[in-house]
C-alpha cells in the first residue's frame, strides 16, 4: 500500500514540471489566446472564434487526415510487430551489439539527409531498384506514382523508426527479471512459447507506450512527407501537419496556424480518448 506523500511526489516532479510549464504549457495557453486574434505581422486584432470557424469549414483540412489514418492502420501495427521480432532477434543472435548499432543508424541520421538519400533511392535515373526490378522481370518500373506514394512513405518511415522501436523493446526485454523465463524453461516450454506467452505480455506496457506515441506521431507526421516533396508534386494537404505549414506557417499566419494545430490536437484527443484513458490507466496503476 503506497502512502500519499504528495509533497515528496511533487518534489520529485518539480524539475520536470518547471520546464514542462515553461516549454509546453505556457506556449500552448498563450497560443490559445492568440488563436482568437487575426494577424498580419506584428499587428493583431480580436476576431473571436473566426479562426476556428474557418478551420472547421475547411474541407482541405479534413481531407488531410487520410494519410495519418493509413499510417495508423498499416504502419504502426507493422512496425510494432517487426520491432518485437527484431528485439527477440537481438536476444538470440550472435554479434547482437553490432546489429543493434546498424538498426539504430537510420534513426541517428538527420532527417534532411535521409530525405536526400531516399530521393536517390527512388529517383528515375539513379535508383538501384529500377535495374533490380527489371532484372526480376517487372520491366521498367516507375517507382513513384500517386498510387505508390503511401507505400513509399511507409517504407521510409519503417526504415527510419523500426530500429528505434526494436531498441526500446529490447531494453525492456533485458530488464525483465529472468526468473520467469527460467521457470518456464524448467517446465519444458520452447523458446517460441516463452516468447509469445511470457515475454510479450511483459512487454505490454512498452507496447502500449509505443502505440500511443506512434499514433500521435502519425497524425503529426511532417518530416517524412516533406522529404517526398522533392520527388513528386504533393498536394498541400497531404498530411494535416503539412497543411498547417503550407496554409499558415509559411505566410506568417501564425494565429491561424495555432488554431489549426489546436483543432488537430482536439481531434486526436477525442478519437483516442477512450483508448488512451484505459491504456493510460494500465500504465499508471501498476505493479
Amino acid at each position, binding site marked *: 500500500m*503506497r502512502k500519499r506523500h504528495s509533497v515528496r511526489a511533487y518534489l520529485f516532479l518539480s524539475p*520536470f514540471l518547471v520546464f514542462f510549464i515553461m516549454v509546453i504549457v505556457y*506556449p500552448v495557453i*498563450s497560443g490559445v489566446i492568440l488563436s482568437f486574434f487575426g494577424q498580419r505581422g506584428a499587428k493583431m486584432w480580436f476576431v473571436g472564434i473566426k479562426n476556428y470557424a474557418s478551420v472547421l469549414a475547411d474541407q482541405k483540412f479534413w481531407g488531410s487526415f487520410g494519410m495519418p489514418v493509413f499510417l495508423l492502420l498499416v504502419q504502426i501495427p507493422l512496425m510494432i510487430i517487426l520491432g518485437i521480432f527484431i528485439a527477440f532477434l537481438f536476444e538470440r543472435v550472435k554479434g547482437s551489439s553490432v546489429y543493434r*548499432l546498424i538498426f539504430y543508424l537510420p534513426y541517428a541520421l538527420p532527417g534532411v*539527409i535521409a530525405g536526400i538519400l531516399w530521393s536517390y533511392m527512388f529517383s528515375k535515373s539513379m535508383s538501384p531498384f529500377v535495374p533490380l526490378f527489371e532484372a526480376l522481370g517487372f520491366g521498367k518500373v516507375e517507382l513513384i506514382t500517386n498510387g505508390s506514394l503511401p507505400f513509399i512513405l511507409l517504407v521510409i518511415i519503417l526504415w527510419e523508426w523500426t530500429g528505434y522501436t526494436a531498441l526500446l523493446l529490447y531494453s*525492456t526485454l*533485458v530488464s525483465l527479471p529472468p526468473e520467469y523465463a527460467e521457470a518456464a524453461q524448467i517446465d519444458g516450454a520452447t523458446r517460441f512459447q516463452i516468447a509469445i506467452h511470457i515475454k510479450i505480455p511483459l512487454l505490454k*506496457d512498452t507496447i502500449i507506450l509505443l502505440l500511443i506515441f506512434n499514433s500521435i506521431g502519425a497524425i503529426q507526421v511532417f518530416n517524412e512527407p516533406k522529404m517526398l516533396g522533392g520527388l513528386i508534386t504533393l498536394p498541400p494537404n497531404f498530411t494535416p501537419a503539412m497543411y498547417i505549414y503550407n496554409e499558415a506557417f509559411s505566410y506568417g499566419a501564425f494565429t491561424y496556424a495555432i488554431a489549426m494545430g489546436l483543432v488537430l490536437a482536439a481531434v486526436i484527443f477525442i478519437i483516442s480518448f477512450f483508448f488512451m484513458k484505459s491504456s493510460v490507466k494500465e500504465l499508471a496503476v*501498476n505493479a
Partner: protein
Amino acid sequence: MRKFLRAVPPNLWAILFSMFFLLPIYWLIQSTTKDNGQLIQGTFVPGNPNHFADNMSDVFSFNNGIMGQWLLNSTVYSAVGSLLSTLFCAMAGFAFRRYHFIGRKLLFMIILGFSLVPAFTTTLPMFMEFKNLNILNSIWAVIIPSCVNVFGVYLMVVYWNQVPEEMFDAAVIDGAGEASIFFRIGLPGIRPGLITLVIISFVAIWNNYFLPLVMLSDSSRFPLILGITTINSLQGFPIYNLRIMGAFLTALPLLVIFSVLQRFLAPQLTGAIK
C-alpha cells in the same frame, strides 16, 4: 507460420534486415568520396578518383573552420539536454510509480494531453516567451526546451513499474531516505531504461533542426545539423559534396555515443532481493 519462422535462422533475418537499414547509409558513406560532378552521376560505388580527403578538409576549412564550433555547440546542447531531461524524467517517473499523490491520474493525462499539440504551432508563442525572458539567440533558447521530454516521462514510468516493490520495501527497512532510495537503489535498477533514454534524447536534440533555426540568429551558436544547411557557395547555392560530408560528420558522433553506451544495455542480473 511457426515452421517458417523456425526454418530461417535468426542470423539470416538479421542480415536481411541489416541490408535494408544499411542501404541508404552505405549510399551516404560512398557519397562522401565524391565531388559534385561524381555525385550528380549518382552511382552506387565510391568515386574514382576518391575525394574523401578533399571533402573532409574543405568542409573543415569552410567559413574559417566554423564546423568545429558547430560540433562543439551540438555536443553541449545534446549532452546537457539529454542528461538533464533523462534525470528529470526519471524523477518524474519515480514519483508516479512510488507515490499515490493527489492529482496523480489527472496529471498523468494532462501531461499527455498537452503534448498532443503539434510542435510548430507553439513556435511563435514560445518565441515571444523567450523574447520576454531575453534569451533569444542564446544557448538557453535551445537548452531549455531540450530539457523537456514528455515521451521520456512515460518511458520511465514503464521502467519503474518493473522494479519490484520488495526492493523499495527492503531499502525502507534498511532506513534509507527517499532521495537515497532514488539514487542508490532505483536508478541502478532501471539502468537499461536510463541508457536508452539518454541515447534517444541525445539523438533527438542533436538532430533537432527547427528549434535552433527559429531561436538562433548567430551562426556561431548553430548546432551541426543547422550549420550544414548553410554550406553555400559564394553565390548562395548549396555545395552538395560538402553538405553530404557535413551530414556524414553529423551522424558520426551519434555512432560513437551509441557504441560507447551500448555496453550498459547488456542484460543484468537482478538477484539483489533474496
